[in-house]
Structure formats: C-alpha cells, structure tokens
C-alpha cells in the first residue's frame, strides 16, 4: 500500500481520480507544519540548495547494473547498437519501475560474470532495488536490444516485449510480481532476425494492442564479420555493409496469441535497416499510423488505411530522404506537437554532419523540414544521436527535446576534428514556435559529461509532475536523472485507462484547454530508441494558479470522445474510458 495515496473520490463518477502526492510535496507540507525536522536532514537541506535542471541520481538510487555489449576484435556491428530501457509500473503500486536490457556475448567477447537484465523496483523514496531474478527477467536469452512495454492482454498489468538477435521474447506480467515467457505460445519469436525498435499500437481499433517490430539487418555471428578499418585500426563497418530486412507486424488475436500479418498488411515490402518507430495518428483521421526511422534506408511514414494495410507516404511528406536523395542514418524518433498547432511533428536522430531532423506537420504534404529553422541543425551538427524524446521539462506548456548521443568509431577524433567518440546528451528548450535553445549547460552534471549513450526513456518516476529520464550507455551503467525544474510551474497529469479501447490507451489524443491555450498530446507507442516510456501524459501549464481548473478532451483510440472538466491541477488524474451502453 502506498503510504502517500489518498482515498478515491467519487468512485461511481465517470471520472475517477486518485490524487497521488509527490514525495517532495509531502515533505514541503510537513516542513511547513513544523515537523520537517524529524526527517532526514539531508533531504531537507537538499531541497533548500539551488539545483540544476536534472540531477544525476544513479548512485543515490542504487542503480549498479552495467550493460555488456560483447565488445570483440571482430567488431560485430550489433556490439555498438544495443541498450534498451523502459519506465513502467511493473507492480501497479503507482511508482514507475525500470527495466534495463543487457546486450550479450559475442564469439570473442565473453563476460566474466553471467549476464543479467535488470528490473529495478521503485521503492518510492528515491531508491530502487533489482528484482529481475525474483520476477523471472534476469536471464539474457538472446543478444538484447530494446523493450516495448504495454498491457497486451488488457489484464491491467504491463507486459514486456524484448527485441534482440536472433529472437525476441514476450514476458507476460502475471500481476503477482512475476513474469512468464510466453513467446512461443504467443507466436512472437520474430525468429532469425536482428530486431531493434518495437511499438505496441492498435492498428485495427479492436481494443487489443498489436505489435510492429523494426528489423535491422541480415546478420550472423557465424563466418567472418565484414572487415573495415580507419587509419589501420579495425572499426565497425558502416551500416551499408549489411543488407536491410523487412518490418514485422503481429496482429493480436485477443486470446494471448498473435498472427504474423507482415505480408497481408504490406509491411514486409519495406525492406531496410529499421531502428526507431513511433506510433501516432499523424493525419488526424483517428487511426494510428507509424513513423519508422531507418539507418541509411529511407524513413517510412506508414499511413493506416483502416483496412489492415498501410501505405508509405514518406516521399509525399518529404521525410524519407534528405534534399539530395540520401537516406540519413535515422536511429531514434519521436512525435509531438512542438509548435502548438495541434498536429504531431517528428524528430529523428541521425549521424554526425547529417543534423538530427525536425519535420513540422502542416496538415498536408509535404511536411516542412524545420531542421535549420529550429536551430537543431547547428546544435546537433557534430553528434551521432540515438534516443530522443519530447518532454516539457519545465512545464511551461512547450514541448522541449532531450537527445542522447555517442559515436560508433573509436578513432573518429583522429578523422574529424570536431567530432567526438563519447558525446554529451542535449537538453533543448523550446522557445516557442519550435525554435530551440541549448540549455545543456544548466541541465546538470550529466549533460557536461561524455557518454556512448543509446536508449532514452522519459517518465515521472518520482511522481512530482516533472518528467524525469533515464538513458543507457554501451558497456556502462545507465544514468538516472531527476527533474528539479518542472515543479516551478503548474502541471496536470493524466493516466488513461481504456475499456473499449486498449487498456493502455495507446493512440489516444488529449486536448487540454486552459485560459486561451490549447495543448495537444498523445499516448504514443514506441518512440525514442529501443525504449519504452511512462504512458501517463503530463501537461505543463506554466504559471497557472493552483486553483485554476482545466478542461480535457480525450479522443480514445477506438474513436470515442470524452470530456473531463474542471480538473484540478498539480496532480495526476486516472481517467477511465466512458463506454455508452
């Protein structure tokens, strides 16, 4: 039982809310009541000191797990590509837990210790404990890449899909603190393929989540790896040395099994090196579409045709290639409304000198390449980007952008004077109208250090209304970040529960109206790189007074519209889908 939980209000009403106070707000209140001195002085003293935007609390939280990538003289490309992370409430206690995927061994890259995944349970006090072994997740069954987390069977518990090589794994959350590998029964092996990003989404609006898998390249540990070198040093080959693969789409049969519909949906026609995927309704027709970032293959904008098939509009949208017809090295992707016009825009991370891309959705094709106008070009010129996610870190109502970076070629600094091997993450603040400024220098020590970063997950793991983050690093510990800035402004959080729609409400569109502002957010599937995020939706409200309620309009994935009015701010609201009889 969560000691901070306050009792339900209006259990019979269509809108059931549970106010969950953050730990910090609780401490503030007690401190104001003069009883704060009974608490650990460090906690109180820490609140009084000025803080950077994000604090690196990895050690403090107890995250000691390290990623292992099987680094070897053979330089198998997979060694440099992994590192998925997920933020989700594994045990339903209202606190986000963390799953971290290990890579694996390679023929000449062995681990001294048995490899393990990690599942860090959030204790609610800023600390985490690894329960992977207890729950049945610790064993590394394949070379692990990413995670996609959602409640595929609508039983109220988040399940975990793990991508990797040569197979994928589906863990069913039994709701009792254990997981069961149901891959074979479910039919989701994706056998023989190097799978990378994945996204749960309900493409046919039957209320059950389906699964799209990005497959990267033809690959094997058998035989001789392609051999490439720079300055006589063996390095990882460029991606073009590997042939791409088609996407995989599994339809949820609603009985715990899935059917491979890659062919009938048309997704198997799209052969390329797919990495990042985000599921969102791009064209506002109420059906979830897909944007797929691909590495030296054309990006895909797969529009849902409502009949189980998809059509690629990447060329029409002008998001597939750069202006010279080159396919950039697309790795991570996210979608969100960054200019306040109510339409989802798209960010894609790429290689150094390619610039990470930003495409504005103007409601018709083509999208506008906003990479330079947003300043993203100049800010990301020298970076190799992976995980990327929009977040309103300061709760001012504008979506900002966090990107994690890291190169793949160890000798790059000898080849390019302005490019580094280990690179810094970026925190880009939206100044309005989708123009960004780099605030990394104020973002905290983690943003002035260099990493080989890969996965990035965003989520409010301390439930204070400010989005936090965690990112992974090749061969190293992850970095857990706590947001110190978001509490300076008002916010409101929504936890949607589907009834007719999929329980996680993936695909829902939320429109919040307050004063003269209209903010639009979505519950997306996938996004970033190999990672899975908090499915609650946070709206930053700026300096809105605490007693100023807000109204919310929800377009559920199955098409139903629901309105919630006078929502109290600075708290989370759990909203269950209203189903008319």
């Amino acid at each position, binding site marked *: 039982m969560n000691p901070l939980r306050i009792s339900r209000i209006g259990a019979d009403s269509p809108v059931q809310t549970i106010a969950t106070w953050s730990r910090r707000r609780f401490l503030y209140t007690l401190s104001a009541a003069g009883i704060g001195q009974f608490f650990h002085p460090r906690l109180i003293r820490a609140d009084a000191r000025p803080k950077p935007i994000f604090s690196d609390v990895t050690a403090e939280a107890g995250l000691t797990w390290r990623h292992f990538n099987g680094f070897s003289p053979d330089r198998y490309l997979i060694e440099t590509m992994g590192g998925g992370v997920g933020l989700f409430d594994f045990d339903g206690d209202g606190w986000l837990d963390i799953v971290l995927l290990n890579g694996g061994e390679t023929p000449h890259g062995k681990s001294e210790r048995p490899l393990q995944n990690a599942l860090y349970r959030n204790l609610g006090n800023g600390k985490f404990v690894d329960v992977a072994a207890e729950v049945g997740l610790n064993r590394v069954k394949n070379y692990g890449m990413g995670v996609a987390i959602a409640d595929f069977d609508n039983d109220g518990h988040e399940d975990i899909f793990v991508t990797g090589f040569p197979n994928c794994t589906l863990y069913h959350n039994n709701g009792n603190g254990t997981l069961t590998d149901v891959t074979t029964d479910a039919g989701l092996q994706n056998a023989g393929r190097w799978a990378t990003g994945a996204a749960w989404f309900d493409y046919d609006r039957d209320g059950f989540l389906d699964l799209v898998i990005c497959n990267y390249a033809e690959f*094997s540990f*058998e*035989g*001789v*790896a*392609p*051999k*490439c*070198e*720079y*300055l006589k040093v063996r390095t990882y*080959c*460029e991606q*073009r*040395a*590997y042939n791409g693969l088609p996407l995989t789409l599994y339809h949820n049969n609603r009985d715990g099994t899935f059917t491979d519909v890659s062919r009938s949906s048309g997704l198997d026609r799209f052969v390329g090196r797919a990495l990042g995927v985000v599921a969102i309704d791009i064209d506002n027709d109420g059906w979830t579409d897909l944007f797929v970032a691909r590495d030296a293959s054309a990006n895909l904008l797969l529009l849902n045709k409502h009949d189980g098939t998809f059509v690629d509009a990447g*060329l*029409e949208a*002008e998001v597939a*290639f750069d*202006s*010279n*017809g*080159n396919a950039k090295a697309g790795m991570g992707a996210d979608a969100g409304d960054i200019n306040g016009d109510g339409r989802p825009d798209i960010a894609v991370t790429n290689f*150094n*000198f390619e*610039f990470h891309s930003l495409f504005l959705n103007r409601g018709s094709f*083509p999208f506008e390449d906003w990479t*330079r*106008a947003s*300043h993203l*070009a*100049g800010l990301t*010129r*020298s970076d190799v980007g992976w995980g990327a996610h929009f977040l309103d870190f300061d709760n001012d109502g504008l979506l900002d952008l966090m990107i994690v970076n890291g190169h793949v070629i160890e000798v790059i600094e*000898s*080849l*390019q*004077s*302005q*490019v580094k091997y280990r690179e810094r993450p970026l925190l880009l603040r939206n100044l309005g109208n989708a123009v960004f400024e780099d605030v990394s220098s104020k973002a905290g020590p983690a943003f002035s250090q260099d990493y080989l970063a890969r996965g990035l997950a965003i989520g409010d793991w301390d439930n204070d209304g400010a989005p936090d983050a965690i990112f992974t690093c090749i061969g190293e510990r992850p970095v857990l970040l706590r947001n110190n800035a978001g509490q300076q402004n008002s916010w409101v959080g929504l936890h949607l529960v589907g009834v007719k729609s999929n329980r996680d409400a993936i695909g829902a569109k939320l429109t919040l109206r307050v004063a003269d502002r209209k903010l639009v957010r979505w519950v997306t599937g996938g996004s970033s790189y190999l990672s899975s995020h908090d499915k609650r939706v946070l709206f930053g409200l700026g300096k809105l007074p605490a007693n100023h309620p807000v109204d919310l309009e929800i377009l559920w994935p199955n098409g139903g519209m629901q309105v919630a009015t006078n929502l109290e701010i600075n708290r989370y609201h759990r909203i269950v889908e209203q189903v008319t009889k």
Partner: protein
Amino acid sequence: MPSVIALVFAAVLVMQNATAQNLPAQDHASLGISLAREGKLPEAEQELQEAVRVGPRVASFRAQLGSILGLQGKWKEALGSFQKAIDLAPENLDFRRETAAVQWQLGLTSSAEKNLQYVLARHPGDSGAILLLGLVKEKSGDYTGAAQLLDSQFELVISQPDRMVALFHSVVRSGQHDKVSKIVDVLKLRVNDKLWVNAVGRCTQIAAMGGDLDTAQELFALIPEDDSVRPAAGVQLARLLYRRGQVSQAKELLLQLKEHGVVSADLQTLLGNCFESEHQPGLAMQAYQRAIEMDPSRVDYYEDPVSLLLDLGKTNDAIVLVNHAFAIAPNDARPWLWKGNVDLRTHSYKDAIESYEHAGNLDGSNADAMLGVAAVYFVSGQSEAAIAEYKAGIVRFPKDARLYVACAAMLLASPDSGRLQADAENLLQKAVALAPQSAEAHYQLGQLALQQSRLKDAETELSLSVQSDAGRSKAHFALSVVYRRMGRLDDANRQFAIYRDLKRAEESGTTAAMTLAGKP
C-alpha cells in the same frame, strides 16, 4: 600555306612599280618574279634580295620580297620586309593587306586588324580584306564578328576548306546555329574531295566540342571509314555523347572505331569512362591501362585510373599508379594532386594538405590545389576553413566556376543556410555565367528555388542540370520532388525511378570500397 595568303601574294607579285632610274634593280625584281612563277622560290628570293639591295627605297621590291618569303613560310622575315614596304609607301593598300596576312599567320591579330581596318576605311568593299579580317577575328576569338565578316564573303569562303572551317568555327562559337545548315550543305557537296574531308573532320570536332550533337553526327557520317580524320572526329563525337549521358552510344562508337583498327590512348581513356559510368570497373581499368601502355610518357592518362581505384577503395593500387606518374613527370603538379586525393581517402589529412600545397607550388595557374585543400577541410569537418579557402580561391582564380559552385554548396549545407541563401545564389549565378553547362551549379540553383517554393524555376534549373549530366542521382531525385509538389505524379515517378537506379549503382561502388573483405 593558308589559301588567303596565296591569294594576296599573287596580286602583289604582278605589281610593277619601278622607275626608270632603278632599271638594274628592276631586272633583278623581274627575274625574281619569273622564277617565283616557276616555283623556284629560293632563287626568286635571291633576286629580290638583290633588287632590294640595289634599290632600297623601292617599296614594291620590299613587298615582292615579302611575298616570296611568305610563300616559303619565312613569316618573320616576310613581315619585316612588308613593314619596310609600308614605311616607304604607307598608303599602299595592297602592302597593308599583305602585311595583315602575314601578321595573321604569326598570330599578331591586333596588328593585322589595324592594317585591315586601314584598308577597309579607304576601300570598304575590299573583299580580300574583309575575308582576311574575318579570319583574323576568328583567330582572336571575336567569333561573332568573324562569323559576320566571313559569311559576307561566303562565295570566297566556300572555295577553300580552311576558310570554311574558320567560318564554321565562328558560327558555332558565337551560337549562330541558323547559319550551320548552309555550311553543312556545302560540305556535303564537297565531301568526295580529299582536301575537303579533312575540313569535314575538323568541323565534326568543332560541332562536338560546341555541343551540337545533331550536326556532329551528321558531319561524322560523311567521313569515309578509312579516312585519317575519322578517329579524332569520332572520339570527339563520342565524348559529346558521353557528356550527354548517352553512354552506350558513346561506347558503341568507340568500340566501332577500335574494331576498325584505331589505336588511340584518348579513345581508350574515353572508353574507360564509359565503362565506369556503366559501373563496370574491371573493364574500365583495363581500358585505362591500355591508354597508359599506348602512351606511357603522357601523365594525363593516369588521372582516371587513380580516381577509379580510389572510388573502389583500392588506395594501395592507387598510390602505386601515382608513384609511376611521379617517375615520368617529377615536376608535374598533377601527380601531387592525385597523391593528395589518396591521402584524403586514407584520412591522412595533414599529408593531403601538404600534397595539395606542393601541387600548388608546382603549378599555380589553376585552382586544383586550392580545391583539394578545401576538400580536406570539408571532409574533416572544418566547414569555416573550407569556405575561407574557397573564397580565397575565388579571389585568385575569378574565372574558375568550380570554386563558386563549391563555396555555394558549402554555404547551403551549413546549419545557417537560411541566412546565406542570397550569398549562395550570387555565387551560383556567377558560376553559371562562367560555365553555362555546369551541372552542379544548376543543381544547386534548382535546390535553392525548391527551398523557396519557386517550382517552375526549380524545374528549369534541375532540368538543365540533368541535361548537362544525366548520370547524377541527386538531380533526378530533386526533380522528382519538384514534380510531386506540382502534382505531376507520372513525371515524379519517372524521375524517381531513374534516381533509384542511379543511386543503387552509385552505392554499389561505395559499398565495395567500404569493406576490405567479403560479407559473412
């Protein structure tokens, strides 16, 4: 000897301009003229030299001596003699005309023009002077003027092959395409005359170099298969076909020439270019190798194979060839440029800059070395340094379009390209003025227009780019984007299909270069 000179010399030789007091000198002169008519030119020269010695102030003797010297190809002495004749009789129009003919022969075109303008000011209808002035202007590069003058003397021009070539050259270079067909018609009538076949061959080359494919093909078809002018004309025609993207036709023509026994290093090199365009690097290397073997002393023939080896990632083989080039041409800048390219490819940036700078020290007459240094800066990510190098190059080589294009491309590729568009456009317009056929300049202008949503302009520029070089995937891609925005989906799909095929071929070469060993 050029036919026009013989014409005017003949006129001078009939002049009799002596006075009774010079009779002994006159005898020498008369005898000299007789001997000249008999073709005994050295003896004729001796007589006229004597006439001049005895009668040094008789202008006609000087002129006649000049004529005889000219008939023997002794142009400098002829010029001296004629100039003395003019000094003695400055109003003599024949002397002026003769002098101009010799000056034209010696390449002293402005002096020749002055003399001819003198004649025409006093005798505007002087057809010989008009004809000669046309030839002078052709030589000095005033093709518009030359074409007008020569065309006005068409009947004189068509009587001699050299004059015909001069007129054709002027017409092609000045873009007066409407005059081409009547010249071609004349050539067609005279093609059975051996003297004229050579002219046809030269005109074929001129048409090919001027980009007039139809005329070049028409003229080439007139040349007998066994004629000695056919190889050179054929290679030029093949070169034009290649540049127009008609690679298979170019290759076919070259192979035909080869089959007919034409042995030419230029042919082999161009054949290699064709194979390269068709992504047959093995056959291309064989052709390049044959070119080198045919003429091992020509360092020119090393450029293409070095470039191909670098594209294939075979840097060791490339450096071997470069070292051969050093051995045969140690003081030539080009092997240093190629070494710079190898250094760049192997990421030895410091060595690359040194190699390019060495090339620049050996030959500072062109921008190749500066382009190389800028490329090093670009590849190593030093964009500002690259732009600075290009700008310095533009100051030093203001007529080299490549610098303008490269600088503009760098500006447009930068993160701040939005505010640099005007500068880039300015540079590109200058590039196009210098090199109207520059595929890259038109491509960049097309991209600029596309970014500014000027779709019609974008279509025009990108079409020009494709016309100049149909083998670049990016131009077809950009054109497909334009057509798609215009709603012309069939055109868009067609261009995209061409882009896709070209891109695949481009990337297959790059992939081969990337890996040193095979895939698993």
